[in-house]
């Protein structure tokens, strides 16, 4: 873009400088919603519609979740615009979600004029204070000349180290005022060191433990995906012969049918991966943070094992699990070094232990979930059917609840950056807008949104955005007429007292059609395959409602507060 080269200096408004700075960072799409305090920026955007596509969502929460979907699939930061006051506060859930799931976002909010700050002016909220907990960094700009630098710094912070959301609040007068525009990318500043140098002594110490281990075990998380270290992870486990299990956000970093991929960790993860955590002798955690949903009771978590932690965020090291060797640094670089120092090896007998437990889980849980003999449809068989249509090449976006656990357990993935879900925050309503953002970021890929009937209604308005953009998202509603996951807990731990979890739902097909989106509903096994085919064959967005068993439970399960070894199969 020759208009925005380094030498180029011109007098423009803060609003236009905002747009040019975004373009200089390679932004070509922004999700947002206009309003009074951000109108100058929207006005400037009008002149750059070709370079910068704006997606008008139907709610700011939709905009930020869409930007998250965009970021997760493309690896580029998602950009969001919102106005002051309610526009800005509507971003909070998405910011918190992106913070805990390390998603790079640059959010730009309009603010009342600087002369009005602190006066409780119309649509004034102190979004800097409100968003402090939920951002990696934020800043309020009151002078036009500070805009390019703030945006440069924002992109640098959002995308480097452990990525995360940043927010820039720009007062309206700063948007109107003029500046001498010049853009310089940020390449670093002294109080922030996102790329710690890797200590090779630590790498050697880790390799020594790994080389001597009889039952080594790899746990990988999203850090692998964020560091673009998928190939290194595969090389590492293949060379050393170590079985590897994934966290919810690590899913798809290693193909699901890779022979060393033993499955999912955590509360509804696989039987072997949870149980054998307490039998391995060396635990190698790569780009994951030992979330409580993964570890269960920490006092009874991998106590027998020597723990190696490859992690970019120093605050995560020894936070939940005490390490023997911590390698601070980028997962890609750390794995590369580790591969060099580790011997080629095989762990056939150890792998067999996983296989044995996997066979037990198959008999007790998986077989009847994927190929049920009972009348009602199960969530698992819907995912199995979807796998058959996509062969594991699709992007699967999920919401939060039973369907999320089932989809992540059973969806097949061949490629990284294909699983998008709200992990750390567990935000219902995440899926529909995130799927929209994912589809817009990667129009060539099949994008499936798997949503519960509860979560669908939390951001249902984004059907309007899907209609307007014609983004061909395939929406599968797994309708059990319950807030299923909460109902499951009520059944298991609260004596079946189904307090406020039953849903009387509207006609989802009619709603979709009202939004101009093709839709159908299926409640019998016979019709499922055909309905699925119709959905995938349809050129454009499509909503398929599948009526599933109302009171099915997701198993296995590590009850909250229990140890991973107490995982229940029924």
């Amino acid at each position, binding site marked *: 873009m020759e208009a925005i080269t380094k030498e180029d200096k011109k007098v423009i408004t803060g609003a236009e400088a905002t747009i040019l700075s975004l373009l200089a960072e390679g932004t070509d799409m922004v999700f947002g919603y206009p309003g009074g305090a951000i109108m100058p920026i929207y006005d400037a955007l009008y002149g750059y519609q070709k370079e910068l596509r704006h997606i008008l969502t139907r709610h700011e929460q939709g905009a930020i979740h869409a930007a998250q979907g965009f970021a997760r699939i493309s690896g580029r930061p998602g950009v969001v615009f919102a106005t002051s006051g309610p526009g800005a506060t509507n971003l909070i859930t998405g910011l918190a979600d992106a913070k805990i799931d390390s998603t790079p976002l640059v959010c730009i909010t309009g603010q009342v004029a600087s002369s009005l700050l602190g006066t409780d002016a119309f649509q004034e909220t102190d979004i*800097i*204070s409100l968003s*402090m*907990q939920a951002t*990696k*960094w*934020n*800043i*309020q*700009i009151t002078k036009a000349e*500070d805009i390019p*630098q*703030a945006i*440069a*710094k924002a992109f640098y*912070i959002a995308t480097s180290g452990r990525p995360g959301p940043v927010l820039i609040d720009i007062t309206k007068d700063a948007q109107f005022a003029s500046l001498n525009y010049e853009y*310089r990318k*940020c*390449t*670093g*500043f*002294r*109080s*922030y*060191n996102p790329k710690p140098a890797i200590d090779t002594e630590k790498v050697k110490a880790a390799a020594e433990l790994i080389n001597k281990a009889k039952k080594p075990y790899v746990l990988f998380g999203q850090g692998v995906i964020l560091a673009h270290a998928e190939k290194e992870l595969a090389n590492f486990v293949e060379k050393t012969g170590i079985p590897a299990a994934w966290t919810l956000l690590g899913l798809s970093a290693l193909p699901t049918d890779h022979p060393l991929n033993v499955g999912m960790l955590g509360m509804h993860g696989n039987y072997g991966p949870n149980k054998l955590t307490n039998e391995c002798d060396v635990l190698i955690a790569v780009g994951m943070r030992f979330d409580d949903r993964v570890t269960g009771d920490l006092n009874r978590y991998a106590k027998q094992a020597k723990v190696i932690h490859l992690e970019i*965020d*120093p*605050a995560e*090291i*020894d*936070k939940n699990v005490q390490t023997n060797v911590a390698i601070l640094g980028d997962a890609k670089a750390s794995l590369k070094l580790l591969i060099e120092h580790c011997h080629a090896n095989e762990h056939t007998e150890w792998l067999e232990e996983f296989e044995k437990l996997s066979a037990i889980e198959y008999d007790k849980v998986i077989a009847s979930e994927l190929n049920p003999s009972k009348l009602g449809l199960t969530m698992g068989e819907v995912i199995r059917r979807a796998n058959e249509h996509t062969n594991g090449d699709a992007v699967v976006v999920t919401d939060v609840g039973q369907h999320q656990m089932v989809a992540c357990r059973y969806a097949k993935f061949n490629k990284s950056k294909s699983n998008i879900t709200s992990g750390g925050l567990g935000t219902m309503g995440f899926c529909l807008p995130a799927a929209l953002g994912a589809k817009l970021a990667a129009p060539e890929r099949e994008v499936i949104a798997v949503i519960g009937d509860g979560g669908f209604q939390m951001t249902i308005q984004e059907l309007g955005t899907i209609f307007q953009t014609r983004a061909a998202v395939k929406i599968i509603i797994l309708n059990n007429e319950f807030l299923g996951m909460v109902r499951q807990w009520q059944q298991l731990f609260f004596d079946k007292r189904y307090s406020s979890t039953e849903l009387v739902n509207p006609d989802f097909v009619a709603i979709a059609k009202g939004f101009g989106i093709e839709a159908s509903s299926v409640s019998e096994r016979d019709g499922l395959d055909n309905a699925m085919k119709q959905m995938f064959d349809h050129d454009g967005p499509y909503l398929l409602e599948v009526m599933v068993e109302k009171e099915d439970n997701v198993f296995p399960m590590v009850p909250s507060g229990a140890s991973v070894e107490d995982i229940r199969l029924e």
Partner: protein
Amino acid sequence: MKQIFTIVIFTENKIGLVNRITSLFTQRHINIESITASESEYSGIHRFTIVIEESHDLTVKVVKQIEKQVEVLKAFCFTDQETVYSEIALYKIQLTPDTDKEALMEMVRKNDAFVKELVGDFIIIEKTGKKQETHALFEALSPFGIQGFVRSGRVSLSKTYSTFSKHLQDLEAHSKDTIIIS
């Protein structure tokens, strides 16, 4: 086991950073006993001194989370044995015809305090020292009728060689391009 820790934090001068730091304590229900902010020996760099009573393990975790904040340059934590520290306390006492001034002055001297100012009927006494010492004087002055009492946050310096300047050099070396927006 809980004990007193002094956390020393070097930061850029950024509005709102104090909120980011204190909310890390709030989240974990750690009570801040005292907090002071001032300039440091390095121009443009601020220094926070925060005193808490916590276990070593939790303190170390919070210090790491503080250091993770983008504009924080470095955070350290020290036990009382590792630092030289003190606080300032001011005491306001009303002088009446009944006041035994001699006894009062004797008390001030004995406690290494001094009279800061005489304002009309009031006498303001200042004492620098550790909390136990300023508290002891408070007890001692109580019979004279304390009208006002205030104690500052802790100021402290570590007894060991400061590694911060070396750290700052490293930080500056790794960042070619320093951008500071205030």
